[in-house]
């Protein structure tokens, strides 16, 4: 068909070129890399999920169990340190009284500052001092058992009864009674030694001072409970299996039209649930999620070509969702669930087959173009991260079984390769069973 005229033209035009404007590449780049926006979503979701987890953990730490009433000033560290027996050194003869005007708990037992060299306070760390401050119920004043008195001005009476005027005669009866009380309660023992001033040492044996609302025994119990919580045995572990059906599966930005899609997912794993109270809970877990799907793209309007793709993906799936119980007092409960999820698609096998209709399709979608011709499949694999949101409803049957129906939408592209990016939405059904329900057995009554 080509003559000299055509050859002449071809020679001139074949290598004709024009410089494109920079906007063209920007447009191409935008079309090819729309997931940059999605990355933003990822970075929003990661800290959000972290916050949810941290918040849930914090809440559980403080509210999951009824903790014994601890002194307001106590902390876990101070409680543990307070196991050390504090020491009180009482002089044999003292005359000075406490500072009557002071309202401070610690200061109330101190002599007035103008009494030279009359008093030496054991310089303990503030937190430990606070933890060892006990309230005397008899006169509602504090005694600091760690205070070490080394002069004659400080007396047990000024310690225990700081209301006494400085230099006044202590109420011997009252002092004796209290000493006796403390001894009876094993709070004080007289040691067989005297210090350099000839003073006997009184040592608090158990820290059980009179009138303390919280004894150290209680404190130790609390510490044990907290330690148990640290081991992570609280909450409920659930064995979970589920399946899902892809509801929509959107192509982006390949070729032209939407596509048909079918797919099923299967999942199995364990969930861990923190119950905040009777109505609110937080659940997370680790599940293996398998997804398979098949989709057919719209056809190319010029060549009537279309793509058929199959995909098999395995992922590790971490959901984080909060739950609200609608009927907390019923034996079978209904919960509303809302949360997000992160997944690592660690194995994804995909195959793309290009097909071509033998005749022009009569509709704008697939299936009307007569017989098709297939090209060999192009195969590949991939792995990447994924984030999604989901919401649903759960029915809990007598703490034995749970059935939940949830809808999930991926917020980031389920990306196979440079060609295709997909988002999915699916409905999935999960059945869970509390793991401890497998081991529940009635224990024989403990013999007294």
């Amino acid at each position, binding site marked *: 068909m080509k003559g000299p*005229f055509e050859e002449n033209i071809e020679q001139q035009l074949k290598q004709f070129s024009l410089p494109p404007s920079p906007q063209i*590449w920007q447009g191409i780049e935008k079309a090819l890399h729309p997931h940059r926006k999605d990355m933003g979503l990822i970075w929003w979701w990661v800290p959000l999920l972290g916050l949810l987890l941290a918040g849930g953990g914090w809440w559980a730490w403080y509210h999951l169990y009824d903790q014994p009433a601890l002194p307001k000033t106590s902390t876990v560290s101070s409680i543990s340190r307070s196991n050390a027996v504090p020491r009180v050194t009482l002089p044999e003869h003292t005359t000075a009284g406490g500072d009557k005007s002071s309202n401070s708990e610690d200061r109330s037992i101190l002599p007035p500052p103008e009494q030279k060299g009359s008093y030496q306070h054991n310089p303990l760390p503030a937190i430990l001092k606070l933890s060892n401050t006990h309230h005397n119920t008899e006169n509602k004043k504090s005694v600091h058992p760690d205070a070490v008195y080394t002069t004659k001005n400080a007396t047990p009476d000024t310690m225990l009864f700081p209301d006494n005027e400085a230099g006044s005669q202590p109420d011997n009866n009252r002092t004796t009674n209290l000493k006796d009380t403390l001894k009876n309660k094993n709070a004080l023992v007289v040691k067989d030694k005297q210090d350099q001033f000839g003073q006997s040492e009184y040592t608090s044996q158990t820290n059980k001072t009179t009138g303390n609302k919280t004894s150290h025994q209680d404190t130790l119990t609390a510490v044990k409970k907290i330690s148990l919580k640290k081991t992570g045995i609280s909450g409920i572990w659930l064995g979970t299996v589920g399946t899902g059906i892809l509801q929509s599966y959107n192509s982006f930005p390949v070729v032209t039209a939407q596509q048909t899609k079918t797919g099923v997912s299967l999942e199995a794993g364990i969930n861990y649930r923190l119950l905040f109270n009777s109505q609110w809970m937080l659940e997370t877990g680790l599940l293996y999620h398998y997804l398979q799907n098949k989709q057919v793209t719209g056809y190319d309007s010029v060549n009537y070509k279309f793509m058929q793709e199959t995909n098999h993906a395995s992922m590790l799936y971490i959901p984080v969702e909060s739950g609200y119980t609608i009927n907390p007092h019923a034996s079978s409960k209904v919960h509303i669930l809302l949360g997000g999820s992160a997944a690592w698609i660690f194995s994804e096998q995909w195959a793309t087959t290009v097909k071509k209709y033998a005749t022009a399709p009569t509709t704008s979608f697939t299936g009307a173009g007569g017989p098709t011709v297939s090209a060999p499949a192009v195969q590949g694999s991939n792995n990447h991260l994924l984030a999604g949101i989901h919401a649903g409803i759960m029915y809990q049957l007598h703490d034995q079984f749970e059935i939940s129906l949830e809808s999930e939408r991926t917020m980031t592209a389920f990306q196979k390769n440079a060609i295709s990016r997909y988002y999915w939405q699916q409905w999935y059904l999960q059945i869970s069973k509390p793991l401890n329900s497998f081991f529940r057995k009635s224990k024989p009554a403990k013999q007294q």
Partner: protein
Amino acid sequence: MDQELILEQCLKGKKEAQQALYDQYAATMLGLCYRYTKSYEDAEDVLQDGFIKVFTHLHQYKKDGDLGAWIRRIMVNTAISYLNRHRRYKKEMTVDDISMHPVSDENPEVSLDTKELIETIRKLPAGYQAVFNMIAVDGYPQTEIAELMDMNINTVRSQYSRARSMLIRILKENNRTVIKDYEGTF
């Protein structure tokens, strides 16, 4: 970057490699798109659509073939698709008035520079322009053109003959041809 490496990276979706490939072929392909369209803006649109297709279908490229030729085919296909989609081209895509455009079998030697020649080709109706470009410049077989443009093969032949004659007439009118006695005729 080595072309194989570029291709490999492009298949992985690496932006840098995609840009390298684009830089390598963009100017030539814009020249091609310009030949098929009536305006520079349309040519750029085709180029953009074409390169998106190139990158999204790159996995279909068989490495033993010429990548430039493969991209060129995608550009031509995209251009035809573009012409069919847009109304202003669509009207002219089916011009087949024999009386308006008599067939000539002359083989004049063209004395135009490339730019002038292209502008002259672009004066042809869109359908003629496309068919002429595909046959005379890009070497498409008639059967493939018929398939691409959804035409009968005889219509393709007819359109090409008229496009050719019309072009020669325009060139003659502008005194931009040197008539030579070429033996070969269409």
